[in-house]
């Protein structure tokens, strides 16, 4: 077993350190090393997207990269997504538009939506559905998630205009 090493990360705006083996995946460093259990593990093959986090604002599947690869980057997990103790407009939209049932996929859905809306502030439904194809939901049939992302896009655009 290769020796563990000290990993320095910027997570949710804070500098954090954790001891990890070189082989440790980012998702395990977040969950086990740092106690950020809002990032979930749903599959072993990078299909389901439950482990999605933001790396410098872009959605990545944290089961698909090593923790050491995140060094030097800003990592945002669902725990750090709210703004100043208020729900982020995307989070609020998921609450109000019933974009979740069991909630296991929800953090990944929200962070993938954030990536999309950063790049495409006014997406149509087909664009939203394409953006979410790497995030599985078994509960909702997706429609309420699409509704949530569309509502969040509107809220974010209106927020910026205000």
């Amino acid at each position, binding site marked *: 077993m290769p020796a563990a090493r000290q990993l320095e990360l910027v997570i949710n705006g804070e500098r954090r350190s954790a001891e990890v083996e070189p082989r440790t995946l980012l998702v395990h460093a977040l969950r086990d090393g740092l106690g950020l259990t809002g990032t979930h593990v749903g599959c072993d093959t990078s299909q389901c997207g439950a482990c999605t986090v933001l790396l410098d604002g872009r959605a990545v599947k944290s089961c698909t990269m090593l923790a050491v690869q995140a060094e030097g980057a800003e990592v945002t997990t669902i725990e750090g997504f709210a703004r100043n103790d208020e729900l982020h407009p995307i989070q609020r939209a998921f609450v109000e538009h019933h974009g979740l049932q069991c*909630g296991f996929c929800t953090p990944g859905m929200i962070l993938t939506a954030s990536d999309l809306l950063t790049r495409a502030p006014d997406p149509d439904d087909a664009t939203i559905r394409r953006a979410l194809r790497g995030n599985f939901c078994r509960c909702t049939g997706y429609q309420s998630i699409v509704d949530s992302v569309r509502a969040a896009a509107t809220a974010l655009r209106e927020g910026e205009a205000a």
Partner: protein
Amino acid sequence: MSESVIGVSRPRVDAPDKVTGATHFAADGHVHGLLHARLVLSTEAHALLQRVERDAALAMPGVVAVLTADDLPLASAGSDRTTEPLARTEVVFAGQPVALVVAESEAAAEDAVEAVVVEYEPLPAVVDVEDAMLPGRALARVLEEDAGGGDLESIHAGVDKGQEDGEEEQLSGNVLDTVHRNAGDATALLETSDVVVSGTFRTPWVYQAYIEPQVATAWLEPNETLVVSTSTQGSFVTQRELARAFGLPLERIRVIAEPLGGAFGGKLALMEPLAAGAALALRRPVRVVLTRAEDFQATNPASAQVTHLKIGARKDGTLTAIAARMIVDRGSNAGWGVEGITSLLVAGPYRWEAHEIRGYGVQTNRFTFGAYRGPGAPTAAFALETLMDELAVELELDPLELRLQNAVVEDDVGVSGNPFPRMGAVEVLERIRTHPLWQSRDSLPDNEGVGLAAGYWPGGNEPAAAVCRVNQDGTMTVVTSAVDMSGVNTGFAAIAAETFGLSPDQVRVVAADTATGPYSGASGGSKVTYTVGKAVLKAAEAAREKLLAAASDELEIAPADLEVVDGVVRAVGAPDHSITVAEISGKALRFGGRYEPIEGHGGSAQTRGAPSVAAHLAHARVDRETGEITLLAHVIAQDVGRALNPALVEGQMRGGAAQGIGWALYEELVHDENGQLLTGSFLDYAIPLAERVPDIDTLIVEVPAPDGPFGAKGIGEAPVIAAAPAIANAVAAAVGIRLRELPMTAPRVWATLEESGA
């Protein structure tokens, strides 16, 4: 009076925690000194276990133990997954847990699994369920063990097994159970019917595909109480199963059901015996969390089934008789199968003059059968609703009118031999009739079609209890032990708020564990809102009586002349004479207080069923070159009794329909001829993705359940049932072919198009 809270869409009570990552699922809790277990799975579908070589694994860093069945303190010699969580002497499917590697870290356990060497003496793998039934065929289990004695079957739907069978059919020992439902002379009636259609229908093993893999954590308290924190649909049933596995008194077992990351029938007492067995053996906390690959192989998906079906009708469209022979692949599950429920549901929500239905539960060397949303129902509906469509064509009748003409109404006697309770079969079909998609079905472009299908779920019953407690600040805490699988806690809040006289945001719902909570059965069978919800209603009524007694004393007004509105008790017609719930509760919950705490206990023991029926419309396009089906639109009309929270009801309808789309188009667990799983990851097993599911139009139909809380009933299973046949019928309308096997993959559609020359 303030507005009703019933029938109003509100966000789920657990939504804020779920969007912020604050919800702790069962794999998230920190436990001091926790050990991590990983499974060694059988590489053989059928074999005798010769030897487990563990020395190399034990020598690896961080490894604490390698446990086999003999190392667990099991109490009995059963061969079900509760009493034999690790294979003892015979493995009966590839993926069956054989050993547990327990280590200080998950990574160390994972490494050491590779170092455990298991020696097998292979036996013939029984993988063809129809062949397995024939006399003289090899058996899927050769060593005799006691069949289980658990109560996992009754969770899903308490159905009878039909009549005792006097006739002797020659069958192999792989046939574990036969069901015979018979009334009238179906054979003679089919011979004299004006039109008869028939077919053989196949559906594969289908995986629940909850996004949270199975997980359980167990530890011993200093007083020897076994505590299990787990992702389960039912805490009390898990407690009973653990007591059965380890011979412990119930009082020594405490099961905590954590928030559930999806289950759909699949999370009932599979992981807990493993985690608990290891914790009891090692006397340290142990967590078992499956990887997705392990979850695919080692859990309990829905049965494959083969259905031979024949139905008849008179020229005027009156259905005459139904004859079915239904073969259910139970895999290794000797305890129970769906042959009882599927042989009931194959008759659909229709009247028959005679029926002759046989069901067979057959063991093979594939998986362990388990429940998946509407167990046995989607496959039954695929067969029946396809033939109903064919019958309509033969009779030159409208397929919707044919169904309407024969749809059951209250007190019609079903093939169960019992009268149907009130159920909106006619009402949902009538809603579909006026839908624009149905109206436009004859004016579609080439290769497009609209299909219709219907199906129902009988619903389940189990006694349950609940507590409603008013706090010092006037808010209410509702306590149940129901696992919130589908949003039921949000429904409980509405029921309690409406009954007591609070706004829903003044009500908090907590899920208690087996040590502290009122009784509740497992969440399954579409029964929680109907049974636990009724208990919540009665508990809120009991609390309200206490409230009014105290308020009457304070206001000097008779209880009958008081009303409770948004947390204020006031005189009817004189709202200035009032006192708040918080004031009364404050007078009760203090030293020297004069009133009993404002708390109520309520129970329910529903005896009448509350079936839910749903009809689907699918609009599909078929690519004749490739065979690919594109679903363009989907509609579901469902009788939900009363929609306590329409947004959540629509969520169940859409989610169920989407799973039905998975049955129809994508999902299939495939084994090779040796019983090796070929589709053991999400790379090989496709579930519906966001871009493959169309918008699903929901039509809520409310035919109140007489005994349900505010008329509500269980609605979780019905929406999955008839989605696949609606899509199959749309394909038939589009290109004139009839698929007899699910899923309707492009190669199957293409081959059927080629064969038919259509």
